[in-house]
């Protein structure tokens, strides 16, 4: 049995470009996250070093990962919306 969606979706001509961008940004964040975990298990003492405004690396890196996720999300949305506006409009004109 094959079926449709809860809401009807139109054709999205920007889909491939968005997917490619998503994969690329995913790897960027994954590498930064992996560095955080790697420091924890290989050079634990480094986490306690004061690095910025009397905060240690653990605090700065931890907050940084949260803020970085939000920034990447906003950038991704801006670029994707641009792709959609451009490509879907162009295809509709054809």
């Amino acid at each position, binding site marked *: 049995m*094959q079926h449709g969606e*809860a*809401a009807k979706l139109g054709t*999205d001509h920007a*889909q491939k470009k968005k997917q490619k961008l998503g994969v690329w940004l995913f790897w960027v964040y994954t590498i930064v*996250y992996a560095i955080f975990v790697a420091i924890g298990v290989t050079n*634990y003492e480094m986490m306690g070093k004061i690095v910025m405004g009397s905060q240690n690396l653990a605090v700065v890196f931890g*907050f940084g990962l949260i803020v970085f996720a939000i920034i990447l999300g906003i950038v991704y949305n801006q670029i*994707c*919306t641009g792709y959609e506006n451009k490509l879907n409009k162009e295809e509709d004109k054809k």
Partner: protein
Amino acid sequence: MIYEASTIAVVLFFVFVAIVLGLSFYFAAKTKSSSGYFAAGGTIHWAVNGIAFAGDYLSAASFLGICGMIAFKGYDGFLYSIGYLAGWIVALFLVAEPLKRLGKFTFADALDAKFNSKGIQLAAAISTLVVSLFYLIPQMVGAGALVTPLLGFPHWVGVMIVGAIVIFIVATAGMTSTTYVQFIKGGLLIIFSTILTFYIMNNGLSLKPDHDDQTYHEYITLSDDNMQGFTIVGEIDKDEMHFVKAEKDGVFRWFLQEGDIYKEALSITDTESGDRLYNGKPKEDRAFYQVGHLAKIVIDGKEVTETGPLGPMKYLSTIGQSEIVSFPEVKFEDGGNNVKCYIQKTVPGAKVLMPGLKFKIGEGADFWSRLNFISLMLALFLGTASLPHILIRYYTVPSQRAARKSTIVAIAAIGFFYVLTLFMGLGASVNGVLDVESSNMSGPLLAKAFGVGLFAIISAIAFATVLGTVSGLIVASSGAIAHDFIDRYLGKNLTDKAKVRAGKIAAFCVGIVAIVLGIIFKGMNVSFLVGWAFAVAASANLPAILMVLFWKKTTAKGVAWSIIVGAVLALGIILTGPTNCAKFYGMETAIQPLDNPAIISFTAALITLVIVSLVSQKDNATKIDIK
């Protein structure tokens, strides 16, 4: 801990529950179709859905569990905040839009969209049920923990109340009411957590954390020269520590000997005759105390007794230079009595603000403890995008763009809240509010120190948090049973009305199971339990989701086997790990040393999918091409 109910807290609690039930009645009248019941008809606005995502996600684990773990174990609790938030990156960049494109009601729809395979339908339905049940356990445990101080009821009554209300909500209105409950509650949780953080900053740090109607206990220190009327009547050695039992006025207390001084410890004694004594007295005598204070405050290199109001960064740096007194548990036998002692242990603030108090990755670490840590961080990162109750929320919005935007709103709201958890957790650890019997109540008890009104509101929101999350999980489970299993796998081709009825019956049954599990797992940190749910979800679901979306050679058999291998391995490792061996089988040495399975179970599921897909390529002749 000994609690008594407050009238304002009880009134506010019932007002909240009444609002939640009112919303359910309202939307129940509007929900007639299965699309309305399981996916809110795909009509929810992306901004509402984004905050509802936050409401779903900021469950008991986040507010109760993370704050509690930070309060007791410092930065290690904050690792959960970092990992939970990072998981949204996988959801946003890889899963959100493609899943919206492929699915209808459940994530099994998306997995099966290209295959129409009975194997996938069954495996995905079972996986959804298992993951939802694992996620339901901590929510129910959190509900029990909340109701105890709020209403003065025992833990099991709290679990029963939540179970009954949620079964009612889900059995009446489904996803629409769940969405609006989550929206309201998610928004309120973030607003009031911000207010609580403001109180913490404004209060600053003090060596004597007294609050308006709450005086902090003065801990006694005895010495051989000054026993203050106590007489030593017994001694016990445990874990290289020396405990003495002292008697005064017919009451027996425990002290930790350090050199020639004796530091007061809190104790809970379960006697041979079945009585429970708190600091040597019955519960009614209220001789047990909340804990958590600073031994030394250093600000800008100077030692002080209190700081006055502090900014957020100054608050963290001051704690980093100061010393915190924590109260770890030590268990031993005294004659036929079982004794739990909570001893004063001074920890440098610098250690509290870095990993290592719970997860052994620095001093005393070995290969397995490091692997355990990596495995946990992997599960948190990969788990979010494979949680059934999160995935079904993508079907409540009208378009792929709305799915993406709602995910970004969720990331911003959740990220902001997770930053606050560090301040709320640390605030609880130094404000004399901790309940040594349950870390889960640290956040609400901190609010109580700043006023019963704030405590009542925060607790009611936290309770609504549990209600909303449990509702979402039960909708996901009932969808797996009614839609994936009965309708699709068994091929019953239910009418729309019959499908909704089957979903409601399934919701009732899952609710009952959740109540039983919530009672069994009493006392465990809810965030720790959620870590397991993430591990099972990441192992069973994510390899299948990612490969269906990104690898053209994926076959139906590969997907089904990957789900089975991931779920079985993750469950097997959890059930034979150190925590379960100690808690349920009474074993001092675990069957195997890993508590967190993702690094093994996720990898094995991925490899299984690739191998099975490669050897079953001929099956893909019937694959449906979806652009």
